[in-house]
């Protein structure tokens, strides 16, 4: 039985994790490799590293970090942030990333999805979609959620799949940071509209929220950041809970 995946997401700035990290037994909370190692022990299923470094010069630091993660961590991991060309993706993949996540650049240039998929395979390309409900429909926002577009999340997800995406990372801007639960309706709609896996993101605050998104939608995975980093919801406890509720997770 294929398991539902639990994915911690680490924001990286200039090679260090940002947002606080509250694992007591990590000596250096800012070190992404240490944190990643902790998640391997906790049996997280995959990891996502998002580079939020503003400047291009600092990208080198991120690529070096990807190399260190790949050397030490025996879990699949996705990297994202600032990838706008096939060469950007190639640098990260050859440094050891299993998948790259692309967002604004994919929306502005859907052929980028096809280009990366042709060179490295669809399984390497995760298209990240930030979506917000405008009162009528769930619309796509780009540029870190700052710029609205005229395309709905469902339309864009279908298009991204046709272009060669292997997976969709769907973040509800309405739910993100609220800890009031995943946006079930849009997650359900998008998961139903595409035949590739969908990762639900934004809004996780309790273990019940994970159960809800896995039972009410056909998403394949759920992603969260601070609730895992601060230890509010430990990954092993979450998996024990979900398993008790009849959801198939890797133990």
């Amino acid at each position: 039985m294929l398991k539902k995946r639990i994915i911690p997401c680490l924001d990286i700035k200039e090679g260090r994790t940002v947002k606080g990290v509250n694992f007591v037994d990590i000596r250096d909370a800012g070190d992404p490799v240490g944190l990643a190692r902790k998640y391997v022990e906790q049996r997280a299923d995959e990891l996502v590293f998002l580079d939020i470094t503003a400047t291009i010069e600092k990208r080198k630091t991120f690529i070096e970090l990807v190399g260190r993660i790949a050397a030490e961590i025996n879990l699949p991991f996705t990297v994202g942030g600032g990838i706008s060309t096939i060469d950007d993706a190639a640098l990260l993949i050859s440094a050891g990333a299993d998948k790259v996540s692309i967002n604004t650049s994919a929306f502005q240039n859907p052929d980028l999805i096809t280009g990366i998929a042709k060179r490295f395979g669809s399984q390497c390309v995760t298209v990240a979609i930030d979506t917000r409900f405008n009162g009528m429909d769930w619309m796509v926002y780009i540029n870190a959620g700052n710029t609205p577009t005229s395309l709905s999340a469902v339309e864009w997800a279908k298009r991204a799949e046709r272009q060669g995406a292997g997976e969709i990372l769907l973040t509800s801007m309405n739910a993100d940071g609220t800890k009031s639960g995943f946006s079930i309706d849009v997650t359900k709609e998008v998961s139903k509209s595409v035949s590739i896996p969908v990762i639900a993101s934004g809004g996780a605050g309790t273990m019940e929220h994970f159960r809800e998104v896995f039972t009410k939608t056909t998403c394949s995975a759920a992603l969260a950041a601070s609730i895992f980093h601060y230890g509010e919801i430990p990954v092993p406890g979450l998996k024990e809970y979900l398993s008790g509720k009849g959801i198939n997770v890797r133990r």
Partner: protein
Amino acid sequence: MIAILKYNAGNIQSVQNALTRLGYESVVTDDKKELMTAEKVIIPGVGHALGAMKYLAERELDKLILSLRQPVLGICLGLHLMCHYSDEGSVKCLGIFDAAVKKFPPFDKVPHMGWNNFSALKGSLFRGVSAAEDVYYVHSYYSEITDYTLAICDYVLPFSAAMHRDNYYAVQFHPEKSADTGSAILRNFLEL
């Protein structure tokens, strides 16, 4: 020395990283002599069957793989290449296993991506591993079950998670990305 076949497929570095973590020296190479004399050969990869077979044939690496006598492990695309035919590009493959590689029918999400367990396990590759353990898969094509099948995985339909014939071993999942269980399986191969 363990030789990792260098060809036009991805994830090669991940396999080398995994060997290094297990304390084995390895070389990524397409040099015939290095491949012939290596203790063991690994054919890694994520990629396209047609492109990969073409690449191997142009360099006569297809014949070389068939002449190897040391233990050989194919991973993911490596398993597909060891079968006799793949639907991915309608290409004739190496024919070590009398099995065809087909695309998953669209009854569930494709690619089959994530952690999945086994429904049958046998052979030294799986020494100390239980069928309840999960390993990481990412693939859209699968191999049929044959007499060579060592382990079965069920997604949409039952398919070969691992195969073995003579000195040739192959796994559909990625042991290099499958945490402790994957490391145990890799170690079993390396200790053959």
